[in-house]
């Protein structure tokens, strides 16, 4: 187990962190760099729950928004320092995950849609005009927090390391193997002595916490926002597409997804949005047709054929 963990972290996580750490010196667009790390965390966080339990939460953005508002409300109503507020953001998402845990009784599209409805419900609660005194309501929040781009970027990388470290551990540990078995066939997993519900709950809460923490960091970097901005469904869709494109259940897959697709989005999506939609659509069609298990499955195929 230890050998595989070290190999994967050395081949994937370490180079990624080094590249991300030196990028601010090579490329002077801090917002874009932070967004890359945000999407890396979201894709890997979604990878935790989809890759290891098979649950695809369309409403994953709900945890991101819960984290952002957990951070914001802490700063608005207490004298807590921003770093502690980031932790509160993670805890807020964790609690939302606990409240929504009964959704894990559902399967497939029913689960996906229920999680989407839950995220929308949370957004509507926060945007409720009657709660404006507490949440800012539909007018959003404007935080008086020091702008610390280096710290927020470093914090985002730290969260990414934690989440990817967890994915790498799950890929090599017996607990992760048992999760994959339960994902493949929960009935025979249960009769083989695997506590299917416990395993699903652990990755679900870890996934929620990851999104909450990065949501809090995002809120710190952009301290004025409306509910629509942090509960934007695009966050869920991007995280899902990036993960599936690269390969769920792998460490490198979501990284490939973010680099290729978010890269394409930034290269052609901003300057020529029409062509971007076309290229994006073609890429996803090619993926579904030729690599349904994601680009990372190419390496597995080559190993098997070789």
């Amino acid at each position, binding site marked *: 187990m230890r050998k595989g963990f070290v190999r994967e972290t050395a081949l994937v996580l370490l180079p990624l962190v080094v590249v991300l750490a030196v990028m601010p010196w090579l490329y002077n667009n801090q917002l874009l760099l932070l967004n890359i790390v945000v999407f890396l965390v979201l894709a890997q966080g979604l990878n935790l729950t989809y890759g290891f339990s098979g649950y695809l939460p369309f409403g994953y953005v709900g945890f991101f928004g819960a984290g952002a508002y957990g951070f914001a409300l802490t700063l608005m109503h207490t004298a807590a320092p921003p770093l502690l507020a980031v932790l509160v953001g993670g805890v807020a998402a964790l609690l939302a995950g606990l409240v929504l845990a009964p959704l894990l009784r559902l399967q497939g599209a029913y689960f996906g849609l229920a999680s989407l409805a839950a995220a929308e419900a949370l957004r509507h609660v926060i945007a409720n005009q009657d709660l404006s005194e507490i949440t800012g309501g539909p007018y959003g929040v404007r935080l008086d927090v020091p702008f610390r781009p280096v710290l927020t970027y470093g914090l985002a990388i730290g969260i990414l390391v934690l989440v990817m470290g967890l994915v790498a551990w799950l890929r090599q540990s*017996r607990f992760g*193997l*048992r999760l*994959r*078995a339960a*994902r*493949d*066939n929960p*009935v*025979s*997993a*249960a*009769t*083989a*002595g*695997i*506590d*299917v*519900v416990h395993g699903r709950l652990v990755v679900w809460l870890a996934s929620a916490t990851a999104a909450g923490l990065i949501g809090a960091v995002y809120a710190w970097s952009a301290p004025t926002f409306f509910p629509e901005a942090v509960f934007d469904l695009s966050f869920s869709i991007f995280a899902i597409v990036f993960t599936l494109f690269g390969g769920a*259940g792998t460490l490198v897959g979501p990284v490939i997804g973010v680099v290729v697709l978010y890269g394409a989005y930034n290269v052609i999506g901003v300057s020529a949005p029409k062509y971007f939609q076309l290229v994006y659509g073609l890429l996803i069609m090619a993926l579904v047709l030729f690599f349904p298990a994601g680009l990372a499955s190419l390496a597995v195929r080559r190993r*098997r054929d070789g």
Partner: protein
Amino acid sequence: MADGARADTRTTPPPPLLRVTGIVKRFGGFTALDGIDLTVRAGEIVGLIGPNGSGKTTLINVVSGLLSANAGEISLDGRSLTGLPAHRRSAAGIGRTFQIPKPFASLSVRQNLEVAARDGVDIDAVLADVELDRHAARPVSDLNSVSQKLLDLARALVTRPTLLLVDELACGLNPVELARVAERLRALAAAGIGLVVVEHLMSFIDSITDRVVVMNAGREIFGGRLRDAVQDRDVVEVFLGAPEPVAA
């Protein structure tokens, strides 16, 4: 006094390993199990037979915890299992195979056992025992259906069961494979494991069981030796139908 107590110990049979009492299982308005009882002793092989839809697999599913009963009690080795989920029944000592094998498709053959194995179990030895050691590193999807059935059996064995529920393992096996499986099941019983074997192949049942329980419509209609079962009027009627009334 002491001698009397010793004599009592000699004559009292050991308590059953599995005791199922009055199990009722309903699916809506349909009663699949209608107050059935079943006992299995350690080292005993009990055949569970009956026509399709008689409730055999439902009983296996209730005992293994995949279905919850509407009424009744289940205990293993004197410990109540009623209400426990399937994974805790596995931990308590109940292993099972499936009529249609349910392997973990994305894992290798060996990993299929690793996820289930108790501490100290020699996975390679179990794989060798079911002759799958050559395929250990291969994806489980490479196995044919017979090998997948054997993998199902191996996965149940690495949980170190004290009671093994075997659901139609013999179906699809050739005579040589049948003989090997029968030998393995007898060896498990000889090692003290209690077995419940659901099967339609009567020659196979006859070769391994000590006694059979014949089920129909969720009830036991016969309990005893197979050779006596085939003489029983109710059993014959269930399998072959009632004789035509003779016209006067």
